[in-house]
């Protein structure tokens, strides 16, 4: 799912410096699962902000609330009454959640409290690895289930490049070469033919805002 990371508290404090009544809203979806923006983080952020404001001798009203998911309007409805008591909102959801909330409350400033990092997998508690860049044209079929767009530093489609360094990427000995892994996996599956052919340039899909309409629903939305 979407992985995010809390911003430094100073940055959040900066963005809300001019407001006195602040409601921090958590998200029970991805942000919660990756331990970045669930109820627990909302409470922690407010505690930190409270201490900072106290040290500056400022009294501010800090509210906290967590909704099921911020990326669906129906879950934001329950905030309608609450937000009336506040003059700005801090969202701990991914970029999508922040924007939907800003859209629902156009007169209220909404500030992000997390940086949306990636679409990734859970490796260990609190450690997540990026796996997908949502390029919109999945090539995993011929790359042995290893994404060159995400994992290769140069995102080449006809790798490995000449920078492969003892099985690692040229940019760091900590990073395994994606294309070496692709090669090894395809070789193991006897599928090297998949990368023998020259791969044509990518038709990048992620250049304009995309709206996804699933096929069975096409008749509803396309006239």
């Amino acid at each position, binding site marked *: 799912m979407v992985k995010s990371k809390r911003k430094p508290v100073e940055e959040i404090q900066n963005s809300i410096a001019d407001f006195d009544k602040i409601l921090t809203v958590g998200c029970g979806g991805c942000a919660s699962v990756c331990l970045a923006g669930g109820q627990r983080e909302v409470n922690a952020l407010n505690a930190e902000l409270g201490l900072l404001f106290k040290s500056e001798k400022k009294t501010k009203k800090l509210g906290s609330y967590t909704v099921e998911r911020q990326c669906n309007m129906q879950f934001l409805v329950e905030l309608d009454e609450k937000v009336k008591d506040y003059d700005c909102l801090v969202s701990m959801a991914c970029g999508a959640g922040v924007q939907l909330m800003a859209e629902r409350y156009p007169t209220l400033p909404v500030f992000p409290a997390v940086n949306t990092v990636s679409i990734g997998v859970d490796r260990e508690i609190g450690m997540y690895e990026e796996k997908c860049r949502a390029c919109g044209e999945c090539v995993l079929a011929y790359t042995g289930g290893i994404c060159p767009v995400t994992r290769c*530093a*140069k*995102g*080449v*489609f*006809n*790798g*490995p*490049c*000449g*920078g*492969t*360094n*003892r*099985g690692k990427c*040229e*940019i760091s000995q900590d990073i395994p*070469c994606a294309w*070496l892994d692709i*090669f*090894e996996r395809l070789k193991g599956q006897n599928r*090297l033919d998949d990368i*023998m*052919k*020259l*791969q*044509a*340039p*990518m038709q*990048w899909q992620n250049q304009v805002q995309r709206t996804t309409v699933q096929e069975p629903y096409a008749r509803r939305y396309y006239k």
Partner: protein
Amino acid sequence: MKAGSNLEKILTAGHFAFTGELGPPRGTSIEHVKEKAQHLIGHVDMVNITDNQTAMVRMSSWAASMIVKELGLEPNYQMVCRDRNRLAMQADILGAYAHGLRNILCLTGDHQQFGDHPNAKGVFDIDSMQLVSMVKKMRDEGKFLSGEEIHEPPKFFIGAAANPFADPFEWRIHRLAKKVEAGCDFIQTQCVYNMKKMREWIKMANDMGLTDRTYILAGITPMKSIGMAKYMQSKVPGIEVPDEIIKRLQGVDKKMVAEEGIKIACEQIEEFKELKGVAGIHLMAIEWEHKVPEIAERAKVLPRPVMD
């Protein structure tokens, strides 16, 4: 003739090619380019003009190529995929050709993290292989990547790089085959130090008939010092320096290390002259341009043939 460049003429005539390399300045000094170029004039058939090499900002490759060309030296316009998308690349290719450039070297480019702007957005819209095929399409089909017609298409002699030493070794020859398939006319290899692996690779290329379809120029960089050899061995990705080379450099008197480095390079050149499948040498004398005449002299590749 595909492009009619000096290099193409020399290679098609069956001569053993000898090319050099020149890094553009990190500033606007034409004098700097001239100073470096004067050592190369008459001693090499063509000179590679690097494109923001190691991801450091330098004078653009096509601009430096123009200066070099005015001096009477044939440039090889390098283009990396890191800094431009397919539109900018095709535009530059048109412009470069219009100004009389005839050789192009298509590279993926070092990652931006190496350079002076480590957090720049790497473009990598297409990769080097797709770039080769794009230049070929422009030349042979007279079409842009999109398929639209080009009015008076650019005719480039297309080069690409190959690294016989990076992992996995058994895949390297297939990657060369892919580049040949994509349409490259000549290949310049990564610096060769491991001759055994190089011979093996060339033999495979011969066996697969790749050397009949493309010209392979072996990359040579003479070692200046033991420190450089050790750095190359441990720090430079994709370069393989066998311990014998380092031992050999360590075996001579301190003042004679550079001399020994040149000697090794000359021995390699001698061997490549005889090796079937190698069509020439690409000499990368990094910040050592003034030594090129001496190396060329001692490697007995002078005088360079003059084509009309």
